[in-house]
């Protein structure tokens, strides 16, 4: 197979197509995307709304399956996997960070972060230890028992980042992570991503904001369901 992924590739897609039936018409959200992301890269996927970047993110995040094309995550072919295997991949290999945080409102920060480990069948004591560590890492070691409504927006997003990190996934996948935050808090969150990047985490941030994308070392622009540009940036200048 000429496109077999190399060992340092976290993501490789080939001719990725995703179409939706809208009544009698077919909408082509993605029209053949070839993308390779290597271990340790920090990539921003940019594009206006309706460009197909969310569709691409859902495919990369294994929340959706492509209409055509191939996708390898950590060398595993994903396109042919069933529901239960996709759930396992999401659990082990991917950490999601959402624009709206998507924390469980009735659960404490600690229990929110434990959630992926629950589905990984980890024993409670181990789970608690790992979740506590993850929260300490994002600077919330003193907020373990707080519920989401007792935390500020920035703190909620930190909880959600801790939840994404707790399984030590191959890929951190953030969808407009600062969309619901003020600029000062946004900046703090982006600094956190950079710190994680320096630790060696592979990070993909989907955004439509240029200044957020500028924090990444590589910017992939999507337009009309295809990659319009793919540029490496000089090391971002930190103010």
């Amino acid at each position, binding site marked *: 197979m000429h496109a077999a992924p190399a060992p340092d590739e976290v993501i490789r897609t080939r001719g990725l197509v995703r179409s939706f039936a809208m009544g009698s018409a077919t909408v082509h959200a993605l029209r053949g995307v070839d993308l390779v992301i290597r271990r340790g890269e920090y990539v921003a996927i940019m594009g206006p709304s309706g460009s197909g970047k969310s569709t691409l993110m859902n495919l990369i995040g294994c929340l959706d399956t492509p209409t055509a094309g191939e996708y390898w995550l950590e060398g595993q072919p994903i396109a042919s996997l069933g529901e239960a295997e996709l759930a396992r991949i999401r659990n082990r290999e991917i950490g999601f960070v959402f624009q709206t945080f998507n924390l469980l409102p009735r659960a404490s920060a600690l229990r929110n972060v434990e959630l992926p480990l629950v*589905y990984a069948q980890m024993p409670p004591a181990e789970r608690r230890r790992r979740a506590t560590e993850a929260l300490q890492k994002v600077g919330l070691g003193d907020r373990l028992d707080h519920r989401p409504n007792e935390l500020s927006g920035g703190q909620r997003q930190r909880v959600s980042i801790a939840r994404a990190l707790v399984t030590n996934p191959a890929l951190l996948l953030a969808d407009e992570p600062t969309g619901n935050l003020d600029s000062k808090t946004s900046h703090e969150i982006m600094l956190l991503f950079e710190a994680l990047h320096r630790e060696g985490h592979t990070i993909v941030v989907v955004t439509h904001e240029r200044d957020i994308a500028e924090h990444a070392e590589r910017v992939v622009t999507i337009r009309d369901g295809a990659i319009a540009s793919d540029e490496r940036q000089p090391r971002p200048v930190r103010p």
Partner: protein
Amino acid sequence: MRIVEAGKLALESIWANRLRSFLTLLGVIIGIAAIVATAAVIHGLNRYVAEKLSNLGKGVFVVQRFGIITNRQEFLDAARRNKRLLPADARAIAERVPGAEIVGWEVHATADLERGEHVIRDTDIGGVTPAILEIEPYEVAEGRLLLQHEEDHAAAVAFLGHEVAQRLFPNVDPIGKELRIGGARLTVVGTAAQKGSFLGFSQDNYVKIPFSLHQKLYGTLGSVNISVKAREPARLEETIDEVRAVVRARHHLRPGAPDDFGILTAEGINDLWRNLTQTIFRVALFVVGISLVVGGIVIMNIMLVAVVERTREIGVRKAVGASQRDIVQQFLVEAVLLSCLGGAIGIAIAYAAATLLAANTPLPAEFPPWAPPVAFAVCTAIGVFFGIHPARRAAHLDPIEALRSE
């Protein structure tokens, strides 16, 4: 996800919506409470009847003109066909059935009792041979039982039930005193110990007099009930067959013709009773079954609402790695716990009701030990049956749509 985790989650969510959960469960609560309370009453009655019947004594059976009659036509047929049983029949049994240890007979009438201004109306007057008092144990409180020479001479003597003694002779020792039955004056020779009541009917409202005296007072037209005590209780069936053969021969029945008399045994009465209560229980089960189905549908409805309310939560869980199986398990466990919670409340209500009934009414309700496990099994089945559809609906939500919902 482990089942314990799912259980904890379910309890949290039930607790978070406690009023709604309780209202949802009313159908199951009422259904389980009703059926368990019914079972408790029937269980209590069965135990009680079995106990009372065992008083009748081991190896004792009664030959009567009418056996167990369950409908009007049977009664009419029996009234037309069945001959009166006579003291001669009883004597024949005593002579020809070696397995019969004691044979006694009794005939009943109803009359008013008088002593001065004390009157008891419509009391059961039993004319008995002394053997009857031995076969159906009558415990003596004061005085003595009736004697054979009193039977031989139709002596004007009486043995009183507890209630009769209390009402005719308040604060007086009745032994040796007189009472009047119709025109006759009888002397009290003994009183019986209290037997108590059966389903609210007193069992102490009777007078026993010698059979020969009874015939003098009320004539010889009544059919007698013949009580037989088998020599060996283990050979009861054979003794019954021998007695049956003797009575059939005296009645000149052709082979194959049905008996024109009835034989009652403690087991026979017990069986009849159990058949009766089982029928009641089945009817109750059917009625309650409907309420449980309604209760199940209400649970299904509320679980469907919960799926809609928690769409986003389901999306998050799927995004972090919950499989469809995990989601099905979570919602199914919640439905089962919900339903079992209803069952637990229903059992508690039934337990309280049975205890109150037993304490305050003549109904001998007794809480059956098998009720809780059976009720929980039924509730689990309801939870699974009515929970599976909402659970599958939750599991099949598209994670992308679910995460977008609000």
